[in-house]
């Protein structure tokens, strides 16, 4: 654990210096600032923010994670010739990527709320959205690490990262709609709930929509999930599913990392 901490501190240092995180923070700040300047309605701002968070965070996290891992290859190689075990190094690099990015989002997202004094107006929504953003950051960085550990070719790895984002953010909902269309004569509700658990973006969306009564606007999967899981149980289940989306890719990639040649 001591080794993890040392690696983590250096990684955070290095990540912050790359300036991308600062740009990312600034982006969320600007979006929030703009939304509050042009519309006074907090609920509307929340919905817009959610839509942006659910598209942008996965995309940026998966690409940033891949690029960062590929660029860390030299660092990894160098560190592994020192007395350090692969596990500590890997955990250090993973957290060193996920924490600054989450922090960047958290700060950029929170500042406009604080500036405009809007935190208390919908305090549950604020913290929920913050939590979803951070969970999605971890999920997509875990996925990007899984890709990068397995795929040595940087351009192929980045292509795969974008493809996975595209599938989860766009194609998946299309498939779900198609399933609904073709099987409309059957009771599909339970199947829908299961299908949703296989998409972290949907999970994030559902988790948030359960707090707002506008599920119908946000796609079919959201609507179904709200009807069946508009309860504390639903929140717990979707958070557990999101955590599984972090833990499973992380452990898989860690196993590959331990056997990898540098």
């Amino acid at each position, binding site marked *: 654990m001591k080794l993890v901490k040392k690696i983590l501190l250096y990684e955070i240092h290095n990540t912050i210096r790359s300036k991308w995180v600062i740009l990312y923070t600034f982006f969320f700040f600007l979006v929030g600032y703009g939304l509050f300047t042009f519309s006074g309605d907090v609920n509307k701002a929340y919905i817009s923010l959610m839509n942006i968070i659910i598209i942008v965070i996965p995309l940026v996290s998966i690409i940033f994670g891949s690029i960062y891992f590929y660029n860390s290859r030299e660092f990894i190689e160098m560190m592994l010739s*020192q007395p350090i075990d692969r596990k500590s190094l890997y955990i250090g690099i993973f957290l060193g990527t996920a924490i600054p990015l989450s922090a960047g989002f958290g700060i950029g997202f929170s500042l406009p709320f604080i500036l405009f004094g809007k935190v208390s107006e919908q305090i549950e929504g604020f913290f929920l959205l913050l939590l979803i953003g951070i969970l999605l950051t971890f999920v997509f960085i875990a996925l990007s690490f899984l890709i990068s550990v397995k795929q040595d070719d940087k351009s192929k790895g980045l292509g795969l990262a974008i493809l996975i984002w595209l599938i989860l953010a766009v194609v998946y909902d299309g498939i779900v709609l198609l399933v609904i269309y073709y099987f409309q004569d059957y009771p599909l509700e339970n199947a829908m709930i299961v299908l949703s658990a296989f998409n972290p973006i949907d999970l994030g969306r559902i988790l948030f929509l359960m707090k707002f009564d506008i599920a119908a606007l946000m796609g079919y999967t959201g609507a179904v999930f709200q009807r069946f899981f508009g309860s504390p149980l639903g929140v717990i289940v979707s958070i557990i599913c999101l955590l599984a989306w972090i833990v499973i890719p992380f452990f898989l990639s860690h196993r590959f990392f331990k056997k990898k040649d540098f």
Partner: protein
Amino acid sequence: MITVKNIAKDFGKNKVLKGINLTIDEGKVTAIVGPNGSGKTTLIKTILGLVRPTAGTIEVDGAEVKDDYLYRNKIGYMPQIARYPENLTGSEIISLIKSIRESSFYSDEEMRASFKLDREMEKPFKNLSGGTKQKISALIAFAFNPKIIILDEPTAGLDPISSSYFKDLVLKQKGQKKTIILTSHLMNEVQELSEEIVFLLEGEIKFKGSVKSLLEDKKETKLERAIAELMNQSNN
């Protein structure tokens, strides 16, 4: 002492090492030579644990190193190509390594001065030339006073002055009875520095013995010619 037992490594269908057995004696300079792609770097990286062998074991001072990592406290390594995180500086990397290594011994004043590194250590790596990074690599390999030093084509990117200083450094370490493993394509360098020589060809050891005995055996005074002869023999 490093004992390599039956080490094999496949990269897919490509068999890079085909059952290497090798003992590297303590307190000597051993050179690993061979053409490009003969498996020199892979062998070195297997000893360091950077590459996981398909079969075989490696022992350092009598203990198997498979799942151990603390044995690397004894090793200083200088890679073939010095690559570091772009945004960090030399002194940051060194303080990171210092905090990781068990031994608190660290002394680099003399090397810093001779390599003229003082100012370069505070610049991020992206602003440094390949040769300067190579020098920082040398610093990392030597300054912790490890008992085993592994150098993978160390002088390839160095200017003549630095390179000759570097050779003095190796000779000095040799005088202190360090175990040194070195790969190089420059045969005069190998002849100058090393006592033992391992000739690797297509993942197999074709010769192992002292430089002296090889030269006597081939009736040559230059190592380059002796190695060329070895290679011709292996090809026939």
